[in-house]
């Protein structure tokens, strides 16, 4: 008896056998066994797990990204204790800070202008800059405004007496707002990889929360 080739058997994993091939598979144990093994092989390949990158991979990548100006150093977040916050919260904080200069975040930053830290908005707008000293002061003011907004945002998002979004529905509602904010940020700065990264973070977080909500509903069915 002439056996079916491996290529033929491999084709039958995806396609229906011809009548002759079907008859052969019924009659020939060896080919039937090979066919079964090939089918299991394909199934097993489809179930291969993802692979963890080598240790230190992120650090190498981060250094390259910072070197190429594609991301900013996370030092600022670390200094103010944001490193432990969820990524989407960090992203949202940065978006709010960014939008603080465009109107959206003014309401947030308005209350944090005490203690001599309030930024001089005329300097920030660049209207009063006529010397190197003015430029240096403007940079300092903008940094202070940035830090104030970060701290305030942290309070709003769960620090101190701010609201908490522990249940998925509140969380997804908050994420919808952040999504709109991040889309606006990207609209204003379409080529900024940082804001695009924030947008992706928010989208990914929203997707995950929606999935959780959906799976909870499935559980409720019983």
């Amino acid at each position: 008896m002439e056996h079916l080739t491996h290529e033929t058997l491999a084709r039958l994993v995806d396609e229906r056998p011809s009548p002759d091939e079907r008859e052969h598979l019924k009659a020939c144990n060896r080919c039937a066994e090979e066919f079964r093994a090939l089918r299991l092989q394909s199934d097993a390949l489809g179930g291969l797990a993802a692979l963890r990158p080598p240790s230190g991979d992120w650090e190498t990548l981060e250094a390259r990204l910072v070197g190429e100006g594609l991301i900013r150093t996370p030092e600022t977040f670390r200094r103010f204790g944001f490193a432990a916050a969820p990524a989407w919260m960090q992203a949202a904080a940065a978006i709010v800070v960014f939008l603080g200069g465009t109107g959206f975040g003014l309401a947030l930053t308005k209350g944090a202008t005490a203690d001599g830290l309030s930024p001089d908005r005329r300097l920030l707008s660049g209207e009063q800059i006529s010397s190197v000293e003015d430029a240096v002061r403007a940079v300092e003011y903008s940094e202070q405004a940035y830090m104030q907004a970060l701290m305030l945002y942290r309070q709003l998002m769960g620090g101190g007496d701010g609201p908490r979004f522990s249940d998925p529905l509140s969380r997804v509602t908050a994420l919808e707002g952040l999504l709109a904010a991040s889309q606006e940020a990207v609209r204003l700065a379409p080529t900024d990889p940082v804001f695009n990264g924030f947008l992706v973070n928010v989208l990914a977080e929203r997707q995950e929360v929606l999935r959780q909500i959906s799976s909870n509903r499935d559980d409720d069915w019983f």
Partner: protein
Amino acid sequence: MRALYERYSPRVYAVVRRIAADDDLAQDYAQEAWIRAIRALPTFRGEARFSTWIHRIAVNSALQAVRKAEIRAQKEAPLPESLAVAPPPGDALLSQRLEWALDRLPERMRKVLILHDVEGYTHDEIGELLGTTAGTSKSQLFKARGKMRVLLKDLDSSENPGSEDDGKEMEAWSI
């Protein structure tokens, strides 16, 4: 950005590693894919899932890199060092055998087998990615499956000498 990396890097690394068939090259290619993706973020608007989008970038990036380098001529590579992300208990050995055999397939066959059987691309999509036809993709796939089967049988024979002499059929589940 790190959150994105943590979430998607295993999938990105896996497809790049399997296409590259080399741990060191895979790390370079995966990083290149990330840099490309981050540069291209302005073009991502959330219409597709982010995982799909970055996966496609990783595949393209790896295929291009492999094409440029014309790497690997039937070398005797050691078992892959890459660690699977939580392989199901009992499947670790099977996964290791599959990864070992994938590394030994001729390049064109390996690419098609990975894209079709591992990643679930259609023959039309593979044809587009590799600059060939769906028919060629199919033909390469069937050859690749057959070749892989032979590699795994040979591996089994070398690990269990004498098993074939006994005239016993290898259990299908052992692949």
